[in-house]
């Protein structure tokens, strides 16, 4: 098992290196840089701009820039945000946490709703419950996140039950611990539900078809023949085997989840990585873009890593195959 974990960890290194290289290449191809906008500013002399560009190696070819960036990155320094004038890591810390929190809570909501619904639909196959679930799944698959997020904002605005965007209220700093926690939850709930709704349908359908497949297996028939109650057969025998493939789905759904989070963050003003990336892109703050993209990728591959480990832990065959 430990060997497997170690192997998977080593797998991550070339991916992160590749992603940083690719993003760096893309950013070097981008027209202009952060200081282009300052060229028309009469208060800044051309001499000063040359100095500033030289300071951040912007006057050098991209592979030299990448070399400098990589050297610093290995020491935990992901570059310097020219727009915010702080180290990128400082900015990213809270944003990364916010995106993680949003995705994590959304995942929990998704699974807590999708798995029971999927089981219910499978057990009551072809009944109205099944049809209703299938209908909801289709609606959920087809409603774009952009639209759902806008509707959620409208809902929050019209009812006043939820804050319209943001991650915390302006008075957050004056609150005590418990109130701060409640304030955060209050702000988190709506974006998380929007994000959860989009991935819910896929997992529910998967759960249903998995369970239906296992219910057809011979050991289930054997268990029924033995005279076990239907509940015992479903929950004790079939369900445990049906859950397994969902772990693979969990790994696959992460990419969609993070892209969804990107949309939700930007529409519902949730200060996460996606919002920061967009801000950095429009400010041409390229070191910050590279840092956020690498971090988002890190979040994705870390999630995949966890999914792999869970899968290997639950299914010994995978461990042995590697």
């Amino acid at each position, binding site marked *: 098992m430990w060997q497997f974990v170690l192997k998977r960890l080593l797998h991550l290194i*070339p*991916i992160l290196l*590749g*992603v940083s290289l*690719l*993003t760096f290449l*893309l*950013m070097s*191809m*981008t*027209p202009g840089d952060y200081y282009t906008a300052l060229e028309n500013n009469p208060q800044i002399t051309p001499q000063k701009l040359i100095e500033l560009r030289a300071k951040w190696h912007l006057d050098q070819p991209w592979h030299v820039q990448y070399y400098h960036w990589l050297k610093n990155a290995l020491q935990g320094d992901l570059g310097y945000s020219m727009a915010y004038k702080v180290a990128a890591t400082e900015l990213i810390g809270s944003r990364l946490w916010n995106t993680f929190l949003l995705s994590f809570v959304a995942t929990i909501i998704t699974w807590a709703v999708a798995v029971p619904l999927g089981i219910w639909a499978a057990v009551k196959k072809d009944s109205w419950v099944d049809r209703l679930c299938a209908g909801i799944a*289709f*609606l959920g*698959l*087809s*409603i*774009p*996140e*952009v*639209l759902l997020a*806008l*509707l959620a*904002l*409208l809902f*929050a*605005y*019209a009812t006043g039950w939820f804050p*319209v965007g943001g991650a915390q209220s302006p008075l957050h700093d004056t609150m005590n611990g418990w109130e701060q926690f409640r304030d955060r939850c209050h702000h988190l709930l709506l974006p998380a539900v929007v994000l959860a709704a989009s991935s819910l349908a896929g997992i529910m359908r998967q759960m249903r078809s998995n369970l239906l497949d296992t219910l057809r297996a011979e050991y289930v028939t054997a268990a029924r023949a033995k005279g076990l109650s239907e509940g015992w057969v479903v929950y004790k025998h079939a369900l445990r085997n049906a859950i397994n493939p969902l772990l693979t789905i969990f790994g696959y759904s992460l*990419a*969609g989840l*993070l*892209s969804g989070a*990107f*949309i939700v963050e*930007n*529409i519902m003003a949730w200060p996460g990585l*996606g919002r920061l*990336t*967009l801000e950095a*892109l429009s400010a041409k703050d390229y070191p910050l*873009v590279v840092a*956020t*993209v690498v971090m*988002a*990728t890190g*979040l*994705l*591959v870390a999630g*995949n890593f966890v999914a792999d480990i869970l899968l290997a832990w639950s299914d010994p065959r995978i461990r042995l195959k590697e």
Partner: protein
Amino acid sequence: MSAPIDTTNNPEARRPRTPWQLFWERLRRRRFALAGAWVLVGLYAMALFASFVAPGNPERQDRERFFHPPTVPRIQGWWLVVPRYEQTKGGPFVYKARVDDVKPVRFFVRGDPHKLLWMIPTTVHLFGTGEANHPILLFGTDQFGRDIFARILYGSQVSLSIGLVGIALSFSFGMLIGGASGYVGGKADTLVMRLCELIMSIPGLYLILSLRATFPPKLSSTHVYLLIVVILSFVGWASMARVIRGMALSLRERQFVLAARALGVPAWRIIVRHILPNTLSYVIVAATLSVPYYILGEVVLSYLSVGIQEPDASWGNMLTAAQNTEHLQSYPWLLAPGAAIFVTVLAFNFLGDGLRDAADTKSN
């Protein structure tokens, strides 16, 4: 009671149905898939004849009618009539239907000049009242007084075609690379697969927006359109290539491929003529189900105002107007493009789901 058909002397009756025939038979039984297909046919027809179906020019700003509510037609006697809406003095952009001032809806009326199918200049529109001061605004107007229905129709030309063009591009690319990679194997295969993994390990929208940033922000709509297609395809081909590669890996060991090789058929011909056709049923289903990805990709980029630029209409940039929650509450018809996206994606999902079930021979 009819006589039993004698099958022994009738070779026609015993001819087995081809896989395609079986496929069509199964598909025809799926009502939702067919409904989806017909909705799509309707939407594409409307997109094709957008300038004719739209009652007016999508870019004309009517200063008298900002945030005009949707016109509600009704039946009066034998006529389908529409009332004229007048702004009340009460507040900004509050309208009231004038029941006493109605005009019948007429078909094939003269209106704004346009070019049918981008070629034939004409002034005939599908419907209207024939009077400029008495417009039919099915979905109301936006903050500039532009007809949302007309804009949705023109926007559908972008959204509906972008999916097809994107699929054509990324799937042919993904199929060729995946097929070749799986068939040839070795170092080239490893290299291609690592590249796919790399592309797939960056969360989609982060990569898409970084790619978008490598081009100037302000471009003409045609250029942006092409750019969006290329970018979305660049991100989308990887997953396709991986699946096709897996199929090619197993197909290349099959006897018909070995036979072709023994006959000295060149590798590219084996890939194109023997391997790829065998992946086709998967590809068709996957293509239908991934059209929404391209539609939504354009929507997100245009919504974030790095896609199709105003005044050209696209479903994405129209939704930007709905960003303002206050406006959205007072003028909910601003969400109409969202409903259009929803209907389109739903239709594609229904069709794709039906195709998948019909292509799946095992479960029946």
